[in-house]
């Protein structure tokens, strides 16, 4: 079975500073990895995903993530955050051929002016 751990429940960061949101996964097989974002009072939307190939994945809104198989990690980064990035971010994992995702508990990013 697959699972993900998001190590930080809340991350405050000043506007225009860099940010890293951490995600570690657990799986005995190869995996697909995702980051979703949830803005206040909305559903989730996909930021980026890793299926195979290049370990550096670029997503929307300037976010990127790096798949690290040896450390079983898929950390999300942005070099300079904006107020509008304030949201909750969820890491998720699925195994090949799986029908569903397993979500982490989420990291609330707060960008401080």
């Amino acid at each position, binding site marked *: 079975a697959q699972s993900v751990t998001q190590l930080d429940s809340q991350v405050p960061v000043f506007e225009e500073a860099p940010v890293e949101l951490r995600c570690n996964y657990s799986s005995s097989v190869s995996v*697909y990895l995702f980051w979703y974002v949830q803005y206040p009072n909305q*559903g*989730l939307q996909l930021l980026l*995903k890793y299926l195979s190939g290049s370990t550096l994945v670029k997503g929307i809104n300037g976010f990127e993530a790096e798949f690290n198989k040896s450390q079983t990690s898929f950390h999300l980064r942005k070099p300079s955050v904006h107020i509008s990035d304030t949201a909750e971010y969820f890491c998720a994992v699925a195994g090949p051929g799986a029908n569903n995702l*397993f979500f982490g508990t989420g990291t609330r990013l707060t960008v401080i002016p």
Partner: protein
Amino acid sequence: NAGVTQTPKFRILKIGQSMTLQCAQDMNHNYMYWYRQDPGMGLKLIYYSVGAGITDKGEVPNGYNVSRSTTEDFPLRLELAAPSQTSVYFCASNLEGAHNEQFFGPGTRLTVL
């Protein structure tokens, strides 16, 4: 396209009452999902469907039922509501399989008193 729509947006139930949460999508997606989101817990899969007439349990199916008579609709039924079912419920859909982006509805906030 309206995408994924959910009704109602809010609902308060008394213990023991029943209700149906509605979900519809107009993207001709085969796969549909129901999640619940509780603070600090992330999203947990309740049920999912891989096509009309086919449903399967997720991580937390107890107290819920689903049906899928058409491609577009995937209602979630709560029988004998309990305070533990107080949550925000999200419906999602995608084309096929966990590796594809899931599109989420805006959610239904349910309170059971």
